[in-house]
């Protein structure tokens, strides 16, 4: 049974190529603005002026400057990094598998990371966040290998339906072990429940510095691979006909995805739907060339997570929602829209 | 011959935006073989679906024996009109007998699920299509031609007066194509009315009593093959330059397409010969 999925509308919003580069600059400006806006919000409102001062003329006796530097700035920067990484990882997955419904969360990566983290907490009791992040990374890597292998068995390789099902099955399977552990130990459950839904709370510079290198390397690798991904997104046969070594490209791309998605999940836990939603919006704006899609994705992904985080912090002030929940609430309707309008038997 | 199936002012569309078939009138004579031909996208498959109630008309109506098919009870209609869609897929592991048995559905109810009559009719359908020895084999293990015959056997078991077939010979090897068409001709001789969409013009000319040529959702020419298959019509409908000759075996019209390059080369070859001679 084959599912033919129509490509998303190919008329670009930005028609002329010359607009694309300035567009990137505008995107950069937007993300900085969002960062700033996000920092101003919180239990105590802080003005833009104070933010500027805290960065450029730091006064370490000012409480506000300290809050900005040690609490808000790292959190927001972490959010941007996570969003950028997930969006780019999702874009690469969609290009590689020629599947508009691919994304790190749907392919079971998050379930693998969660299981690894729960296992570690179950065994070690109360490890520091840094241990969380190593475990998450390993779990994500193993999961991605397994799901991709499972979903690409057979003549037709990885089709949208097979990958989605493989991801769903793997998630359920691993999830059952995770649940078994959580049921057995109320302490683990208590420790872990905030992490498993994806959150930026308490992400400080130390954690950021530990995880950011993976994502940074991943982002650079992604930009370097962009041209190859455009080629392979045209189809395996066509790419081979054009002289590309598809096996090598797929391998490198997979490593990049693991670095990006694994890094993101180790920093913020499983945040879903950014990897799914952002590439679609970007493709609508810039078209099918991954040399533009990937950088735009990075920016848009960052913006989306920052905004979701803002919403998550405002909506039930002074409490905050985990950003992963907010992202799912915003992203799932879009997924349904995709499934409804873009999948034509 | 009386009209058995009639479309009046029929317009068909899939998504309410693009109209595929435009206000079309068509009469199908009882006991005839009608072939719908035309280029890709002309609406011939759509028309067939409209004739069979798989597609509701946007305007106009389709009447079977003077009754609007969309007002008839589904099972009643299924007892009179059978359809074989394009490229049907049989579920894995389904045997030929089971597939053909499905054709009895419109004649059954929860109370009467498998009468002796049902059994007989299925056996007969298998015999006519020469599939009795394959009865217990899975459908997907058969060759293309045999599979198509199995689906036709199912339509036969349905015991309908009219059979609609959507491209029954596409994707089959040539020998099997002729097999299937011969079978349909035999069924027609037994009194069934056949309407089929065919891709191959020459086959249509050989087997059909009436050809209907469509372009852009409208009928451009209809009638006996000799009337429809003219160079002018072929140019109108298909944009094809062709000459018409008599099929040496069946005496029906046969089209021989011409391509510009071939004509040019042939003319050039001719010129060289005449130059040599002169």
């Amino acid at each position, binding site marked *: 049974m084959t599912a033919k999925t129509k490509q998303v509308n190919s008329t670009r919003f930005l028609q002329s190529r010359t607009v694309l580069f300035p567009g990137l600059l505008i995107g950069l400006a937007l993300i900085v603005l969002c960062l700033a806006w996000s920092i101003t919000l919180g239990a105590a409102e802080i003005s833009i002026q104070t933010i500027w001062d805290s960065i450029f003329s730091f006064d370490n006796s000012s409480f506000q400057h300290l809050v900005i530097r040690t609490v808000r700035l790292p959190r927001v920067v972490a959010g941007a990094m996570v969003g950028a990484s997930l969006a780019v990882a999702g874009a690469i997955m969609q290009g590689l598998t020629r599947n508009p419904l691919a994304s790190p969360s749907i392919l079971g990566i998050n379930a693998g990371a969660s299981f690894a983290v729960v296992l570690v907490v179950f065994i070690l009791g109360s490890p520091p966040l840094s241990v969380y992040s190593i475990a998450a990374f390993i779990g994500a890597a193993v999961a991605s290998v397994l799901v991709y292998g499972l979903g690409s068995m057979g003549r037709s390789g990885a089709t949208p339906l097979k990958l989605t099902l493989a991801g769903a099955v793997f998630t359920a399977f691993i999830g*059952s072990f995770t649940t*078994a552990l959580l049921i057995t130990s109320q302490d683990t459950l208590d420790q872990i429940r905030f992490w*498993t839904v994806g959150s930026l709370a308490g992400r400080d510079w130390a954690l950021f510095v530990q995880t950011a290198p993976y994502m940074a390397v991943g982002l650079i690798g992604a930009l370097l691979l962009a041209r190859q991904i455009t080629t392979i997104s045209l189809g395996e046969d066509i790419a081979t006909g054009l002289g590309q070594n598809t096996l090598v490209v797929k391998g490198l791309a997979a490593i990049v995805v693991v670095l990006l998605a694994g890094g993101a999940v180790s920093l913020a836990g499983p945040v879903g739907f950014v990897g799914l939603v952002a590439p679609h919006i970007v493709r609508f704006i810039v078209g099918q060339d991954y040399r533009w899609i990937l950088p735009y994705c990075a920016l848009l992904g960052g913006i989306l997570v920052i905004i979701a985080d803002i919403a998550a912090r405002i909506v039930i002030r002074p409490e905050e929602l985990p950003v*992963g929940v907010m992202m799912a609430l915003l992203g799932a309707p879009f997924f349904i829209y995709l499934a409804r309008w873009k999948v034509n038997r | 011959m009386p009209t058995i199936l009639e479309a009046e002012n029929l317009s068909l569309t899939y998504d309410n935006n693009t109209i595929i078939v435009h206000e079309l009138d068509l009469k199908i004579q009882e006991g005839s073989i009608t072939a719908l031909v035309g280029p890709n996208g002309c609406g011939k498959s759509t028309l067939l679906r409209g004739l069979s109630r798989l597609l509701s008309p946007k305007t106009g109506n389709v009447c079977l024996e003077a009754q609007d098919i969309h007002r008839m009870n589904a099972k009643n209609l299924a007892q009179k009109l059978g359809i074989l869609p394009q490229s049907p897929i049989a579920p894995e592991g389904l*045997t030929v007998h089971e597939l053909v048995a*499905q054709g009895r559905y419109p004649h059954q109810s929860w109370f009467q699920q498998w009468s002796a009559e049902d059994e007989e009719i299925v056996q007969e359908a298998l015999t006519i299509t020469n599939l009795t020895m394959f009865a217990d084999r899975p459908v997907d293990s058969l060759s293309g031609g045999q599979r198509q015959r199995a689906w036709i056997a199912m339509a036969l078991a349905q015991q309908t007066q009219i059979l609609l077939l959507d491209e029954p010979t596409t994707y089959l090897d040539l020998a099997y194509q002729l097999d299937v068409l011969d079978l349909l001709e035999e069924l027609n001789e037994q009194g069934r009315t056949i309407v089929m969409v065919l891709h191959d013009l020459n086959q249509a000319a050989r087997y059909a009593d009436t050809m209907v040529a469509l372009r852009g959702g409208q009928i451009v020419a209809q009638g006996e093959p000799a009337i429809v298959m003219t160079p002018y019509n072929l140019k109108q409908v298909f944009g094809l330059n062709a000459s018409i000759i008599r099929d040496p075996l069946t005496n029906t019209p046969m089209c021989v397409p011409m391509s510009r390059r071939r004509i040019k080369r042939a003319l050039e070859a001719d010129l060289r010969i005449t130059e040599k001679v002169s």
Partner: protein
Amino acid sequence: MQPTKIKHNWWILRIGGFSYKIDKRVLPVLLALIVIGIVVLVTSVSYGEYDITPWQVLQTIFGLEENARFELVVWQFRLPRILVAFMIGAALSVSGTILQGITRNPLADPGILGVTSGASFAAVAAIVWYQIPTVYLPFVTFAGATIMAALIYLLAWKGGSSSIRLILVGIGLGAVTSAFTNLMIVFGDIRQVQQAYVWLAGSVYGRDWDHVRSIVPWLLVLLPMAILQARQLNTLNLGDDTSKGLGVNVELQRGILLLVSVALAAISVAVSGTVGFVGLVAPHITRRLVGPAHEGLIPAAALLGGVLVMFADLISRWVISPSELPVGIVTAMIGAPYFMYLLYLNRNK
């Protein structure tokens, strides 16, 4: 009554105007399943912290043994829960069989379709947020499942229902309800959250005769409804066009069958939470045993599903005894690898 052997594969029953056809394999399989079921039942009842030999179990059930202790353990604790396990296994299995039939997809299952996550969301909301007494859970979960199914059907409708869209929309909506469920998990009281987790994992712990009584009427109505639609299910498998050509009212049938499937899934979720994979795996195994004709497939799948869950329950009580795992986890641990094997078998489709 004359069972007439005509073709190689069926038994045909004809009395007067009534005629019925059933695959030859069905009867022996049904018998075998009944026997295995009884064996598993008795073994399961005899296993536990308080050991009772199978012979004593039988005697207690038939009233031949006058031991008050045995009666308590057998009748009050073990028998009802094992019967519940059997019934939800049967319900989920038939639900999955129907879903696989109407979506023409051998990989469909009530859980994957997201219907059960609607039911779970309703149940978790009831437990954690509103703290509704468990007596009302069946109604709450049924409402959750039906609303979810309606939403999935509506959203996947685009001039007709398509099997792929149903699955994908189900996954999407499932994600939305998971998000809400997660919200409650994060902010709820930890004890209730843990209770909810157990419920989410699917458990028959502590199920008593009240639960049995709440399921039986549903099964008595829904299972015959499913069996009566067997012919339509067979025909739907040939494709929408062919079915319509044969006189089946495709949209109506699919709607009714979806409703039956959802109701079966909902009732089992209501009683025992989300027990996964039974609805996926049991129909497959049954299909290999009795073939795809739904007249025999549905009853056999019901029996097989019931036996499977009874067996999983036995394992769940044995594996980390004296503690027990929720039965849903055992079905996932066995079911998911089997499903992966199925994906492997279906890889060239």
